């Protein structure tokens, strides 16, 4: 992937806190190809947002960032604030989680979009305003000619997030970072915002780094998926590979906790027992081991590296009846950090985690 627009290489982010050093991100590597959508999933505190903020250079000053973040070959880490400001917005734009708070309450939405345009382009106020109207139309704001003069509080949550997307599109960025763009919205509006995001991608031809904990969002939008756990990527692969041949027990756990349209409805949702580990201090062994149903002695001794998964459908047909593995899933770009990745990739999701629900009555 030499033509990748954004390359993150062995990124580490440490925060010094009163309790010791917090290793928020411990070595994440990925490359974002042009027009590609890469989804990053993981629980709260797995380092997703920190990765995004590090890319924008927006981390607080007490963060220690090492590794490399390159945009079209240009190193972003260690850039001066002034040089970073040139990259922000024009090359890499960001969509924030909460549309209710990420718009300035004292300015009209038109002003805010125009401000984004004028931050990087030397255009007149009128041109910027016309551009604002065009962008509002593009993200599907009805009556954009008049709504451009409205304040954020006069918009609903979903419309505000569309405005935020319009602001992100304002300078035709090469990469858009979306940090949980649908989390603060209710489900019916999420779909609209996702389709707006798709429109934005078509229009700007930008790559998207989509950070979410919602696998449904990933399935609908992403080309590739990166699963994070405890500050590390534990699995990366195409959407098909992740959804059909998850090779890390944690990914199984995430998938098992979601209702599936393709199951017959008798399957209970499974939860992953326990909670994510603290990121303070150093640890030996696989961070997922305490919660893992496949825990073996080696898991407590050695943290598994990310390595290619060799997908071997088992001969005895232990493949769950609900799992259909597409033929093109061959594991070439499919990496997982598990000592038993090859075996795990063939296991059925349904039975991996115990059914821990209190009521065991049979679902009719």
């Amino acid at each position: 992937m030499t033509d990748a627009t954004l390359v993150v290489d062995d990124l580490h982010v440490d925060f010094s806190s009163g309790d010791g050093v917090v290793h928020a991100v411990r070595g994440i590597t990925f490359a974002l190809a042009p027009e590609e959508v890469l989804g990053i999933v993981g629980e709260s505190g797995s380092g997703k947002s920190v990765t995004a903020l590090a890319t924008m250079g927006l981390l607080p000053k007490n963060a220690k960032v090492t590794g490399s973040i390159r945009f079209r070959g240009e190193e972003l880490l260690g850039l001066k604030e002034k040089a970073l400001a040139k990259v922000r917005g024009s090359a890499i734009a960001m969509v924030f989680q909460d549309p209710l708070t990420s718009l300035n309450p004292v300015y009209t939405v038109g002003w805010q979009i125009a401000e984004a345009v004028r931050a990087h382009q030397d255009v007149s106020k009128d041109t910027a305003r016309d551009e604002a109207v065009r962008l509002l139309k593009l993200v599907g704001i009805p009556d954009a000619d008049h709504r451009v003069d409205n304040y954020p509080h006069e918009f609903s949550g979903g419309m505000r997030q569309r405005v935020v997307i319009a602001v992100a599109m304002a300078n035709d960025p090469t990469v858009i970072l979306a940090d949980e763009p649908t989390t603060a919205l209710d489900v019916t509006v999420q779909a609209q915002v996702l389709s707006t995001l798709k429109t934005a991608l078509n229009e700007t031809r930008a790559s998207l780094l989509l950070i979410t904990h919602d696998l449904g969002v990933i399935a609908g939008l992403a080309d590739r998926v990166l699963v994070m756990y405890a500050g590390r990527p534990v699995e990366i692969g195409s959407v098909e590979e992740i959804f059909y041949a998850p090779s890390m027990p944690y990914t199984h756990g995430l998938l098992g906790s979601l209702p599936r349209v393709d199951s017959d409805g008798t399957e209970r949702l499974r939860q992953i027992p326990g909670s994510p580990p603290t990121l303070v201090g150093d640890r030996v062994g696989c961070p997922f081991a305490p919660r893992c149903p496949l825990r073996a002695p080696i898991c407590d001794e050695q943290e598994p590296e990310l390595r290619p998964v060799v997908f071997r459908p088992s001969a005895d047909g232990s493949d769950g009846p609900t799992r259909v593995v597409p033929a093109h899933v061959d594991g070439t770009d499919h990496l997982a950090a598990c000592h038993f990745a090859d075996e795990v990739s063939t296991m059925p999701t349904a039975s991996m985690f115990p059914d821990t629900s209190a009521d065991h009555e049979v679902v009719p």
Partner: protein
Amino acid sequence: MTDDRVPGIEPEFDDRPRGGVDAPGILPHSVSSDRAAGLLAPGAVLLDESTAGLDAGFDEYGLSGASRSQLSTVVRRFLRDPMAMIGLGTFVLLLLGSILVSAFWRYSYLSITNTLNSPPSWAHPFGTNSIGGDMFAQVMKGTLQDIEISLLVALMAVVLGVAVGAPAGFYGGKVDSLLMRFVDLILVIPVLVVLIVLANIVAKETNNWFWLAIIIGALSWTYIARLVRADFLTLRERDFIEASRALGASDSRLILRHMLPNAIGPIIVNATITVAGAIVLESTLSFLGLGIQAPNVSLGLLIDSGQDSGTTEWWLLVIPVIFLLVLILAVFFIGDGLQRALDPKKNRVRA
């Protein structure tokens, strides 16, 4: 979402078209303002038409530039606020009146007539004092003097307060510590003692209101600085500031264009309090015989010299006191109105 419609805080007079079902923000400006103009009280129509005309001008221009229409929205809302208009009207009346009287009244504040201790009459509307000075000329001159001093003080306080408070709150850390220790230093100086010493030296030497205002201004910006800092400390953590930074806004742009407008409400309120405080402080100094010196006049000086005769020649005391109170109240009303007009959420239609 925060809802600021706390009962009792929302003014009972709002600028929505009465009885109208449409939300002003949703309609084109010209439509909503025209419609509202017909529904407003007759006294307000004249003013409102002028803004409607202003709007039509913008419409002709193709409503170019969101900031311009935003400004016209603020102006229109201010002009429709009855309390603000009472305050502004009173203030303009006092200012124009004092200028005109100082220029054209048949007596100057320095004139000495043969009528001593006369109560208010046609010849001397506010009466005369014990040496025959015309109180009308003196009170108006004093009012003008106080307006000049207080506006200069407020301007200084806002500029200095923002210049020190904004970077302190925005950058935090060492910058914050350094600037705020400086503020503390100014704060612990007993204002009155310094003013007494400095005013004694400067004002007595030059007998110039300008220097007195500079001294008061140099000592009264600290509250605004602390306020702006506190506001900026919370503002810089807000998502929309991070979002603006993520769009490539520079520090100065963030401070001046994104954060300052969000802090404008408290700044304006404090500026009006500073205006009132400056008038009171000047009056105090003059009352103590340290501020404006005779034969120059200020309201404080007039009140000082009028207090001895308050029980007998009441007009020498009561009239300057009334002018002082009215002036301060007018400034408060203007400040409150400005704050309401600048808050975009006050435009909200109640559900």
